[in-house]
Every structure is written in structure tokens, then in C-alpha cells.
């Protein structure tokens, strides 16, 4: 009996010591970790935009500078109108979604970036998808956070898989929205020729990850479809003028 009590006491003391130590460490390091995550997110947005080279390393300040100069965070409403983030949502605006615009030297829009947050096999997959101003062609894709199996589903964070998306189309050859699917194998081998622009090569051993990613993307992209349609019909440029911060040079870079 006293042995059992002694074990229990020891276990309790150990839990207490370990618990306090880990809590202290986690609390102290949290601000640094959050800052790292913020920079990593911005870096991935820049990567999806094709503004940085994955092979090179960038200082945090350089990332912030590039981000401030080339990326504008906006919101998009259910009708596909792009709004300044500061505009309060009125009653007519139901779903407001975040979108990042990639801007060039002349303040023209080069592409738009949609945040991807979807279910994966073991946890959420977070990433960014960049689409050209034609509203159809994907220009970049990155994943910055996931919990997929390393070596299998974890390949979604690899360059080969992400580069796979570049040049793929959101619409089929009739112009209808179809999103992008993940093929079970190589696109050339398993997908008929007219549908190849809508599929990327799959990862062997990670069928479920691919399925969840494709389903999640379809859902997210369909929510953004009104905006993509506006881009396709070339409506955005004139609509941009209605955005206060866009016309005001002072705040446009913020």
C-alpha cells in the first residue's frame, strides 16, 4: 500500500514539475513562434505569387518589405466585388472572404491569391493558390502548414507537387467552372486529353490526401467563383476604382 502511495506521489510530483516547466517554456517562446509563423505565411503568399525563389533564403525584413510593396490584402463579397479590408460589411454583404492581390510596378493587378484551408487526412491543410487575372489560369500554389504523413501525403509541401498546379485551369474547355482535381497517378496516363488542364499529378500512397485537397479546393474556389467570373469578364479593373484605398496612393501600399 505504501509502495503504491509512494509511486502515486512520485508520479504527481513529476507531472507537476514537467507541466510547469513546459508551460513556462511554451508561454515564453510563443511570441517568437507566432512571429515566425506570420513571416512564414507572408513568405508563402509571396512564393505563390512567384515573387521569391524557394531555393534562396530571405531575411524577415526583406519578406516584410516585399510583402508591403507587392501584396494588398482585400476582401471579396458574395457578388465577387473586391473591397478594402477597412470597409465595414453592411447587411447586403453576406459572405466576405479574404483575398490577396499581387500588384506590379504600375499598381496594376498581376494575379490574385486565395487562401486555402481544407481538411486533410490527419489535420487541416493550409496554403495559398494564385490565379492569373484571366480568372482561369493557376500561377502558383503553396502549402505552409499540414499534418499529412511525411513521405506520402506530406509530399504536398514539395516543389514538384506544387509546381504541378502552375498553368492548370479552373474551367473546362466549355468555360464552365470545374476546379482542379488531383489525379490518381500521372495526369498523362489516367486523364483524357480534354480534361488534362483540370488535373494535377497525384501522389502515390496518398490517395486520400489528394481527394481531400481536391474536394476542399473545389469548395473554396466555388465560393470565390463570382470574383473569378469578374476577372474573366474583365470587370475588375473598373471596379477597382470604387475601392477607396486603391485610388489613394497614400494607403494603397499598406
Amino acid at each position, binding site marked *: 500500500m505504501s*509502495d503504491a502511495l*509512494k*509511486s502515486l506521489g*512520485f*508520479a504527481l510530483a*513529476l*507531472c507537476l514539475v*514537467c507541466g510547469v*516547466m*513546459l508551460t513556462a*517554456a*511554451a508561454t515564453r*517562446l510563443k511570441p*517568437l*513562434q507566432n512571429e*515566425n*509563423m506570420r*513571416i*512564414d505565411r507572408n513568405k508563402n503568399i509571396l512564393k505563390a505569387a512567384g515573387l521569391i525563389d524557394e531555393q534562396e*533564403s530571405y531575411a524577415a525584413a526583406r519578406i516584410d518589405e516585399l510583402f508591403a510593396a507587392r501584396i494588398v490584402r482585400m476582401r471579396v463579397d458574395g457578388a465577387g466585388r473586391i473591397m478594402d479590408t477597412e470597409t465595414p460589411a453592411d447587411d447586403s454583404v453576406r459572405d466576405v472572404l479574404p483575398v490577396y492581390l499581387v500588384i506590379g510596378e504600375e499598381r496594376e493587378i498581376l494575379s490574385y491569391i486565395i487562401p486555402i484551408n481544407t481538411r486533410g487526412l490527419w489535420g487541416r491543410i493550409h496554403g495559398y493558390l494564385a490565379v492569373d487575372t484571366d480568372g482561369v489560369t493557376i500561377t502558383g500554389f503553396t502549402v505552409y502548414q499540414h499534418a499529412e504523413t*511525411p*513521405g506520402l501525403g*506530406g509530399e504536398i509541401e514539395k516543389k514538384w507537387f506544387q509546381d504541378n498546379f502552375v498553368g492548370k485551369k479552373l474551367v473546362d474547355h466549355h468555360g464552365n467552372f470545374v476546379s482542379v482535381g488531383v489525379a490518381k497517378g500521372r495526369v498523362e496516363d489516367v486523364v483524357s486529353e480534354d480534361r488534362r488542364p483540370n488535373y494535377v499529378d497525384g501522389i502515390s500512397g496518398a490517395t486520400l490526401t489528394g481527394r481531400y485537397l481536391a474536394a476542399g479546393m473545389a469548395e473554396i474556389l466555388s465560393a470565390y467563383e463570382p470574383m473569378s467570373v469578374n476577372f474573366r469578364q474583365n470587370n475588375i479593373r473598373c471596379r477597382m476604382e470604387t475601392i477607396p484605398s486603391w485610388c489613394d496612393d497614400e494607403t494603397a501600399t499598406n
Partner: protein
Amino acid sequence: MKLQRTKAFQTLARPIWGDNPINIQMLGICSALAVTVQLNTAVVMALSMTFVISFSNLIVSLLRKIIPRNIRIIVELSIISSLVILTDEFLKAYYYDISKQLSVFVGLIITNCIVLGRAESFALSNPPHLALMDGVGNGMGYGAVLVAVAFFRELLGFGTLFGFQIIPDGFYAAGYKDAGFMLLAPAAFILIGLFVWLQKYLSGKS
């Protein structure tokens, strides 16, 4: 007494060469395959592992007389996992990119049989200074193999070391190609196999 003859030195040196955890005892092979594509990750993994195994050995050895025998494994695991979580949090705060590349493998140090093995078979029955030496030795023995494997994999697979290009551009122009095979897990198996052979040959064991 000469330094080489002291028990502490022998405890430190034995796992680095004669009783190497990977090459001789065949432990911890899993992570040796996973994190050795680049030298950066291999070095960080080796340091993390050395930190965890040294301190888990030290703490277990300090507590060895009061740890109740019936719950000793769970106590050892709690100590090891606390150290591993500390390491992981530290990497996330200061070496975020490397921590992302290592992903789950830092967390998996908890299940690395070398750590629990040394705590159970050495630290529980030896005084703290020897246990610490044993931990450092095993960490370095493990790390040395990791770094050696990563050296060949990165050099042959990417043509770089620590990310710096080593193979001159002229070689590529002349038709040299990086061995993509080196980036796959089986390449690490083959390299470790060659190391085992080399070490057995050098130390004269059959």
C-alpha cells in the same frame, strides 16, 4: 591515470565508435533515413538528439534511487518527452525553417529506442557523471552517422553541402547529373550498410 583510461572517457568514447548505436546496435535507423537528405537538418537533429539523450540520462541517473521501480518506464518516458517538447518549442522559436523541415521527426525522438534504451540500461544503474558521458557519447555516435550519411546524400543528390554548391558548374555542363536516387530513403539504407561494413572491416570483427 591517463585521460584515455578513465571510466568517464571510456563511457563517452565507446558509443561513438566501438558500440555505435546505429552501426553496431542497429538502433534509431528510422530517423537516420528521414532527416539525412541535407546536412542542415542532420546536424540539427544530431544536436537535438544529443541534448535530449544527455539530459534524460542525467536526470534519470539523479533520480535513480527514488524512482519507484513499478512505474520507472513511464517516469523515464515523461522525462524524455518533456525534453523533446522543450527542444521542439525551442526550434520553432529560433530555427523555424529547419523545424518545418524536420517536421515530426523531432517529436519522434521520444520513440527513438536509443534514448529509452540508455535510460533503462545505463542511467538507472550508474552515477550521474557517467550517465551524462554515456548520453553525450551516444548522441555523438548517433549524430556522427547521421552527418556522414547526410554528407554523401547531399553531395551526390544535390551537388551541395550545407546548401552551398560544391560540384562545379563545369561538371554539369560536361553532362554530370545529380543522383536523384540519393534523395530516396533506400540510399540511406545502402550508405548505412556500407558504413557498417567499413566499421566492421576497420575494427577487425567478422
